[in-house]
């Protein structure tokens, strides 16, 4: 894991790191030139000799870079940088492209969220299949029955398993006892009503 972070840090500062390596190798050459001079060579000859002994600096820098970069990662990184440069060059195009993508993704997400909560996700109650819709004539969609209702609620979801001790969820009612639990503003209340008739939801 540490190796991964070291790699990442190298990638982020790769141009500085490469410049440092070149400087380091140049310092190496200078030290060797000094050694040649101490051996009695003229400064100019020593410089030549030290450069000859150095070998291929570009190759050394390349090899050093290959140590840090996994080939594919390096390629992807170069692609990303090229893409960013391209976008910066034509900012209008970039803005339109980003806007289109953002709008498309946003609308898709919103629509799917609605679709998911209306159609796909089951009601948050135990055994939703046993629920029935209780209505006084005008019909409301099931999903709205448990959420915000006006005080004069005209529909409620019925669950046969409801007993007097609990009225959780405010939209359960017992079809057997004839009492219903109706949403009324922020409060829940159990009411008796013979006018309500259960119907399949």
């Amino acid at each position: 894991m540490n190796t991964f972070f070291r790699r990442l840090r190298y990638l982020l500062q790769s141009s500085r790191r490469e410049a440092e390596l070149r400087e380091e190798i140049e310092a190496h050459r200078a030290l060797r030139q000094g050694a040649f001079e101490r051996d009695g060579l003229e400064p100019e000859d020593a410089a030549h000799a030290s450069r000859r002994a150095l070998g291929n600096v570009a190759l050394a820098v390349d090899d050093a870079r290959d140590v840090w970069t996994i080939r594919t990662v390096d390629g992807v990184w170069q692609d990303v940088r090229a893409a960013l440069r391209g976008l910066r060059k034509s900012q209008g195009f970039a803005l339109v492209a980003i806007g289109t993508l953002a709008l498309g993704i946003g609308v898709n997400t919103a629509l799917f969220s609605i679709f998911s909560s209306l159609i796909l996700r089951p009601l948050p109650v135990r055994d939703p299949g046993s629920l029935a819709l209780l209505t006084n004539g005008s019909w409301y969609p099931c999903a709205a029955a448990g959420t915000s209702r006006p005080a004069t609620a005209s529909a409620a979801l019925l669950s046969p398993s409801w007993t007097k001790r609990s009225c959780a969820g405010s939209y359960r009612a017992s079809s057997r006892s004839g009492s219903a639990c109706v949403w009324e503003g922020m409060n829940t209340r159990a009411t008796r009503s013979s006018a309500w008739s259960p119907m399949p939801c």
Partner: protein
Amino acid sequence: MGLTNTPSDLLPGTLELLILKTLMNGAKHGYGIVEHLRLASDDVLRVGESALYPALQRLLLKGWVKAEWGTSENNRRARYYTLTARGRKQLAAERAEFDRMVGAIQQVLGTT
């Protein structure tokens, strides 16, 4: 052996082992490492820069050495390498592995 500019002149990993060993005696820059290897091996091991610096980078990547800029004896900026604790541990492990390897090779060469 000549100028070892390609790692294939040595057994794989040997150059790293030699660098770690060289740094046991304290911080050194690249040229210092090369000179130490040359002198300690009676002029046999002459490591070229194109082998040395990639090897040093591998050691940096693995976290076995760390590098700091300092001033060299000719008053230039030079990068000094020091052994880390993990590098020290690695040196012991690689040394044992190297002995095992050389022993095995000699055993093979000794068979008739």
